[in-house]
């Protein structure tokens, strides 16, 4: 008897709640399911702002967002893409690390099935050209240009022809390596002597492993005037690297990318001279928008260059609060 | 198979030396084991008892000397555990004879499985034979142990029984027991001593390494005393009581 009363009360309360709910307009992305590859590990330097951007876009547009993390391993990204496609969502966002060739057939299958595929952070130019009309867009830096921009900011700090510099990057990955290539070549055009150092897979996943390597390099090259990188995690370690190598901020011109918390410290102390702000938040936000625009309104893929400028010790203070919130 | 009746000793060692690097573990060993006798091998720690056994059963190669099995000489380089098994010499180690996590039917046959041409084990047949060994040879009846039980489920004395039973099943002419009663309780020791008697009753020979003089005194026909790698004496149990034996061994230790 008690149970029946209880149930009745519950039903009545539910009915009231439904009747009382104000009529609201549905967000335009309601009902859409999207899989997004975040790249690294949840919360790490180059991933957090993208996670935040994607989440806020999904909430605003009503999209059901499913995030995948791959520790930057290309073969994991491919497997995750297959799993995403098998789940038959409306959209999938991928990154360029595995390369256009590896992705091509898989993307074609997905697009043929009516799934919208778009990209971010690291470009897949061939795929963009082929599937652009079907919604394949890109939200990220023009890698080569971004590297070049960073190099120019470094040169503005007073580097001269004949100075020694080292560029630490992922030269082995075809498209992703364009960033460091742009950086190195721009410095070379200005007459600097460049040493190229490759980031190992272990360091790629866990940058703290690179600290002793870089510190040792600096100590072995006392004439080193500049270090450039386009790896977000590596940039974050630079302040520590300089300390460990016994250098004061400003002894070496450091150019990097992204605004990890430790990079902010580096900018404030002057250890990091310039960092390319690739607006990671937008790299997460925009693909979700692309998804909705193509899935609902059949718009083609759009390209958004998020490498708008560099942040220097002079401009960092204004941004600190936003960075802590995981937005910039 | 060797001819049945024309040898006096099952195993005979002549002038055997064994060096581990610069250390001499065995020195001038001349020892023969008769066909149906229980020989107790006694001596203090480090006397070389284990080493002697390992040389006799093919685990270790002697540095020099000759080994005869049933009066046929064995080339030291060829001698191996498998060959010893083929020559009907079996060893039962205190805690190294059976694999703990494996079932009894595997423990019975490992190293000489019943297989087809490709090496696949005839599991059904092995289990049947194992069951027979369990009941007939070892005499375990209705105690809740089956051929599928793992060795870990057995008590210490039962494990020795299994190991000895395995040796007997393979019709070993010589069974070597390496400290079988160490770490066993009183009732378990009784069982092991009984098993040793069965070995002699079935017409086989046995070498019995033992620390506990009372146990070995009870069953041995002959006691061989080893000290610092040499055979120092051979004693018949009826000639010395256990206390006298103990005194003798202690005196040996005090002599340079």
């Amino acid at each position, binding site marked *: 008897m008690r149970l029946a009363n209880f149930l009745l009360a519950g039903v009545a309360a539910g009915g009231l709640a439904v009747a009382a709910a104000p009529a609201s307009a549905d967000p335009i992305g309601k009902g859409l399911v999207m899989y997004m590859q975040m790249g690294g590990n949840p919360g790490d330097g180059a991933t957090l702002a993208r996670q935040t951007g994607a989440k806020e876009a999904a909430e605003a547009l009503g999209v059901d967002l499913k995030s995948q993390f791959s520790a930057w391993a290309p073969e994991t990204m491919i497997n995750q893409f297959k799993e995403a496609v098998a*789940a*038959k969502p409306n959209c999938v966002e991928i990154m360029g690390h595995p390369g256009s*060739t590896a992705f091509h057939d898989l993307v074609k299958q997905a697009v043929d099935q009516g799934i919208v595929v778009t990209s971010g952070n690291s470009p897949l130019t061939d795929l963009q050209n082929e599937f652009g009309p079907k919604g394949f867009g890109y939200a990220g830096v023009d890698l080569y240009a971004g590297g070049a921009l960073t190099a120019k900011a470094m040169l503005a700090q007073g580097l001269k022809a004949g100075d020694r510099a080292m560029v630490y990057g992922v030269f082995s990955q075809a498209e992703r390596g364009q960033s460091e290539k742009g950086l190195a070549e721009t410095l070379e055009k200005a007459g600097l002597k460049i040493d190229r150092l490759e980031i190992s897979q272990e360091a790629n996943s866990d940058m703290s492993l690179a600290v002793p390597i870089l510190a040792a390099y600096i100590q072995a090259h006392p004439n080193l005037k500049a270090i450039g990188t386009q790896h977000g995690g590596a940039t974050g370690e630079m302040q520590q690297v300089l300390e460990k190598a016994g250098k004061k901020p400003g002894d070496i011109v450091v150019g990097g990318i992204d605004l990890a918390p430790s990079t902010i410290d580096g900018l404030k102390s002057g250890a990091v001279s310039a960092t390319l702000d690739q607006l990671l938040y937008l790299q997460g936000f925009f693909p979700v928008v692309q998804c909705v625009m193509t899935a609902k309104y059949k718009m083609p893929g759009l390209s958004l260059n998020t490498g708008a400028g560099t942040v220097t010790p002079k401009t960092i203070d204004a941004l600190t609060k936003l960075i802590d919130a995981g937005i910039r | 198979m060797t001819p049945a009746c024309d040898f006096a000793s099952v195993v005979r060692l002549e002038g055997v030396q064994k060096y581990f690097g610069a250390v001499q573990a065995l020195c001038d060993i001349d020892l023969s084991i008769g066909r149906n006798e229980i020989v107790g091998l006694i001596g203090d720690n480090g006397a070389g008892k284990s080493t002697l056994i390992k040389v006799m059963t093919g*685990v270790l190669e002697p540095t020099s000397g000759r080994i005869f099995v049933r009066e046929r000489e064995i080339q030291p380089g060829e001698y191996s555990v498998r060959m010893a098994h083929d020559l009907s010499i079996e060893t039962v180690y205190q805690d*190294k004879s059976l694999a*703990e996590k494996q079932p009894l039917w595997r423990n019975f046959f490992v190293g000489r499985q019943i297989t087809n041409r490709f*090496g696949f084990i005839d599991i059904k047949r092995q289990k049947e034979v194992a069951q027979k060994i369990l009941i007939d040879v070892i005499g375990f009846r209705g105690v*809740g142990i089956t051929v599928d039980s793992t060795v870990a489920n057995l008590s210490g004395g039962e494990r020795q029984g299994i190991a000895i039973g395995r040796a007997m099943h393979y019709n070993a002419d010589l069974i070597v027991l390496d400290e079988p009663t160490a770490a066993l309780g009183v009732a378990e020791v009784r069982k092991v001593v009984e098993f040793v008697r069965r070995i002699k009753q079935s017409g086989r020979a046995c070498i019995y390494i033992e620390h506990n003089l009372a146990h070995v005194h009870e069953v041995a026909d002959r006691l061989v005393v080893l000290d610092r790698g040499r055979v120092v004496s051979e004693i018949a149990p009826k000639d010395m009581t256990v206390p006298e034996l103990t005194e003798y061994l202690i005196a040996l230790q005090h002599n340079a």
Partner: protein
Amino acid sequence: MAQRSGASILQRFEALPIIVVFVLLLLLFMNRAPEVFLAPYIYTTFLSTLPPLILLAAGLTFVIGAGEIDLSFPSIIAFSGFIFAVLFKEYDLGWIAVIAGLASGVLVGFLNGVIIAKVGIPSFMTTLGTQFFWAGMATVLSGGKSYALRGADESSVWRWIVGRPFAGLTDIVWLQQLSIQALWTAIIVGFLWLILTRHRFGEHTLFIGDSNDVSRVVGIDVDREKIKIFTLMGFLAASAAIILTLENKNFFGNQGQGYLLTAIASVLIGGTSIFGGQATILGTVFGCFIIGMVEAGLVAAGLTGAWVRTVQGLIFLASIIFYMYADEPQRRRALIANLRSFGRFGGIRTSEEGGVRR
């Protein structure tokens, strides 16, 4: 003396616990994400992505069953994958590239075995060292570059090893997607199961894992068998490398790193004991299914990526604790006795099964 049963139900049905866990997880995912798990596509995807993991874990089952460990197989994925990719792409050697790739894995495994068995360095240290060496060799030889195997799906190698046999024959979409490496893997793993449970070599493996000393004493050539085990692992890792490289139509400079912990975890949650002497291929296979399925399932069910590791860790811990209690009757009885005494208000009674000491 207490009653001792011959073989409990756990021993009679191989890998029963992990199969139950797998079924439960599957039902859970079907409930939480029916649009994904009640459709065939996620399963055909698994069939194309799980074979490398399963082959690696099957090899590890033998290695761990023998009481050893192999940490070098990720570097074989890179090294053998490279050998295969470069011969296949640059020199157009087709099936010879396959054989060369397999041979390179066999070589690495054989060297591992020789160092471990003959030189006597423990397997943990040996394979840690060879892991760095061969991964380094792969990077040196490849220049760190990745190789795209463009047009690979035209070749007979691709068609036979990772092809889609039903592609042209049917209109049913999921049938078209069935990949043939699942079949080859099933055959290889089935064969390995037979070896482990019914062949002399499998028995030797378990005895060696149980105790090296006992094995020597009963006449097993421990050194030779260990070399065989590690060589087998090398062969299986190379097979995984070739399947992976062909399926992705790409050789990635650093491929293989992600498999180290997942392969070992799959073996252990499947019921093979890290201490050696007890191994099950069937358990390993279901362990792989679970590890491979968890991430996709959690993502589809809406759990954020951060939870995946946590859930994988929980599954791992729960399995290990479960196996410990299942295998050690004293601990199990002690636990049950403790639970019983909690359930009695005020009455203190010892359980009938009281401590049986040997």
